[in-house]
């Protein structure tokens, strides 16, 4: 079982690389969809395990919700937004994709280095899983920084959220259902608000390049 989780955590990490490597928004969204599938899978495995032992369906319910929201609804919405804005052609990253991917792997090394100094998780399976999931958080942030167009920031934010969720799950074996539901609701709201903002930016500047926002500075 531990091996399975380890494999899953590595896969989740790789999926974030995929997100980062996507040149077009559509491919980044696809990477995100993949990552969410993997997370749902991990939650589902953990949940069925729990259900078998403690008869608590919380995690299974969670798995279902994640699947519905993160795998189906959010990616679809993002794709729809992208289609509506037709701004596919321009190059929207600040550095070359290979360099960005290289930076991501450096980040993983750095996180490993940091975690190896923390008592209790300096080695062992938990260490590996945590390094992988925290790396996802940082890669998400790097993604947000590297993309110029507003949708990129939304995807980056979602990856960060995924990373945090996975970290929490691996570190504590899942948070209480209420908390998870709250976070999920937050993500939903955030996506809706940010989506609305993206449209507003587009209407105002005829572009969703967030560098245009610099003019708003006082």
């Amino acid at each position, binding site marked *: 079982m531990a091996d399975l989780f380890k494999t899953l955590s590595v896969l989740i990490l790789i999926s974030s690389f995929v997100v980062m490597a996507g040149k077009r928004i559509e491919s980044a969204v696809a990477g995100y969809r993949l990552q969410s599938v993997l997370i749902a899978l991990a939650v589902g495995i953990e949940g069925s395990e729990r259900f078998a032992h403690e008869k608590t369906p919380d995690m299974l319910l969670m798995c279902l919700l994640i699947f519905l929201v993160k795998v189906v609804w959010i990616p679809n919405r993002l794709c729809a937004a992208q289609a509506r804005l037709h701004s596919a052609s321009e190059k929207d990253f600040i550095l070359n994709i290979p360099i960005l991917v290289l930076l991501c792997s450096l980040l993983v090394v*750095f996180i490993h280095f940091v975690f190896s*100094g923390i008592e209790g998780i300096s080695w062992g399976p938990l260490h590996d899983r945590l390094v992988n999931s925290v790396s996802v958080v*940082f890669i998400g*942030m*790097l993604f947000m*920084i590297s993309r110029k167009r507003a949708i990129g920031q939304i995807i980056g934010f979602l990856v960060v959220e995924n990373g945090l969720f996975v970290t929490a799950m691996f570190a504590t074996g899942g948070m209480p259902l209420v908390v998870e539901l709250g976070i999920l609701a937050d993500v939903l709201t955030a996506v809706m608000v940010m989506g609305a903002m993206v449209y507003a930016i587009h209407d105002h500047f005829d572009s969703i390049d967030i*560098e245009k*926002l*610099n003019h708003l*500075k006082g």
Partner: protein
Amino acid sequence: MIGITAKGLLESALGLYFAAAIVSLVFQKQPKAGVAACNMLCMVASVCCGAGALMVLLARAPLAGYSGFQFAVPFVAVSLQMDKLSAFFVLCLAVVVFCVSLYAMGYTRRVISQRSNGVYGFLYGLFIISLLWVLTAENTLFFYIAWEMMSVLSFFMVAWHADKAENKKAATTYIIMTHLAAAFLLAAFLMLYQHTGSFSVFADSSGMSAEVKNIVFLFFIVGFGTKAGILPFHIWLPYAYPAAPGSISALMSAIMSKTAVYGVVRFVFFNLEIGQTWWGALLLIMGLLSAVLGSAYAFVQTDIKRLLAYSSIDNIGIVFMGLGISAMSHTAGNHTGAFIGMVASLFHSFNHALFKGSLFLSAASVETAAKTRDMNRLGGLIKTMPRTGVLLLCGGLSVAALIPFNGFVSEWMTYRAIFTAVTIQSEGLNILYLVAIAGLAMTGALAVAAYVKLFGIVFLGKPRSAQAEEASEVSPAMIVANGLLTAMCLMVGVFPVTIIQIISKIAMDLYPSNPMIPVQTSSWYQPVSFTVSVDKIAPLLAIFALISILTVTILLILPLAKNRPVRRCVTWDCGYPKLTPSMQYSATGFSKPIVIVLRMVFRPLRKKTVTGSHPYHPQGIDYDTAAYSFVETNLYKPFTRAVYSAANRMQSIVQTGSVRRYLGYIFFLLLLLMAYNRMVP
């Protein structure tokens, strides 16, 4: 024992002040009754807390600390105490508040009533409570809360006439400076707690290392120095004091600045105990700078209240000089110097509360009567306001350290303290003492000049404007209140022994190892003398000489001169037929020579614009002159300018407005923190 205790008196005083604040709000619709009730209650309360303070001062045992009320927050309780030091300052407060409240009976109704009398009385009552709490807090956190309360309430008072732009600016500067200072105080208190494990004001600091003590000392100096208004933290003071309503200016100058002196004595002397020689040297140098520059700037002012405000800086400087000498002598093992310095400094605080309270009240009277504070528009008021004139003259004589009044005695003691501090062992420090003597002498001469100017320009000569001509004497309550303070100045100046004995008990508490018995004589009318030195001063005898000579001269001359009565004539006019008031020396012109001589300090601005086409036949010449404080222009202005330009540069480099850049800051900060955490276990 059943009966009146100091604790009971203190509590009832607090209650009465609070009642005054509430009553004032309740009777908002009936201003007459409200003002009278509020001020009456304040006066009764002042009698209570004055009596309580006297009980503590005259008794042997201090009023032990006790908690009036415990908040839910740990460590924070309304815990009060009143030892001799606190009691002494509470006594100052009681005396001044009593007189100011009496004054306010006449003043408030006339001046404040354009606005809400109720709110004014409410703030007034709370302000006094906060002052009282600062002086009696037993716990540093409560002290800090009371301190902030005092700052905010006085800010409201400074901003009372905020409809004028300059007052708004004064209030802003004040609140910024006072909050910066408070931050230093809070840091100092927390460091004290960290190293002593106690929030009590009596915490034992013997376990602290010298380095920590040094830092805490510096924090205290910045924190308290700002409130006291010593250089270079004084910039708010000359604007804030004049902006507040008259009776509040009196309270701020007389009492609020003393809370800072209290703080320094309490925390630096009692709590930290003087560690190193440079502490005292720093106090002395800052005090000296404040005294000399304060009196110099006071001399050149043309606004009555601003002159008094600068003069407050001067006097607080003298107080700090006394403290510095006390500290330096203490570290040098010179008990006499340490003792006299402390007594001189506390005595001067007391005297300053009396005469500056009186002077600010006189200034408020002038402002009420003549509707202006600009000395260039006043003049000749002694004919219409003779009583206020005499009171202001007496106040001026006190603050200029002239002989029958109290200011002289404490300044003489400061001189004596410096004299005692000079020893062969102190080597290089002697130079500092020498400079201190010279500075004090110059301060004295400039103070004489400043108060000659204040009295001479405002009350003598001819009125310089119609308003000044139409001024009439203020109400009896205002005269009596002010007269009480002035009478006390004279009493203390003539019979200083009792009060010096009271103060020396505080100094004995502070330096318990001091072997000497401070004041030799026991009867109140005797000359003051210190057993350790053969010198003595007897203002009483000098005054006796002065007054008897004066009387004899007058008695001899007047009867003999009866057959040659004074003939009244016009002022000699060099044959020019009409002397107008504008031909008198103006307030600006009076201090011009000093401004020119000390232009390094004053940075005078002179601007001459000639209108008209031909240089030899100008149609008009405009001449502008003003003197600026060089601390303001050379220390604070460059600083604020640097902050602004740095902020502008930051805006273009760091704060670009790019969302991704901000995200990048967060990202790299996180990485940095993680790396730091890894590197430093």
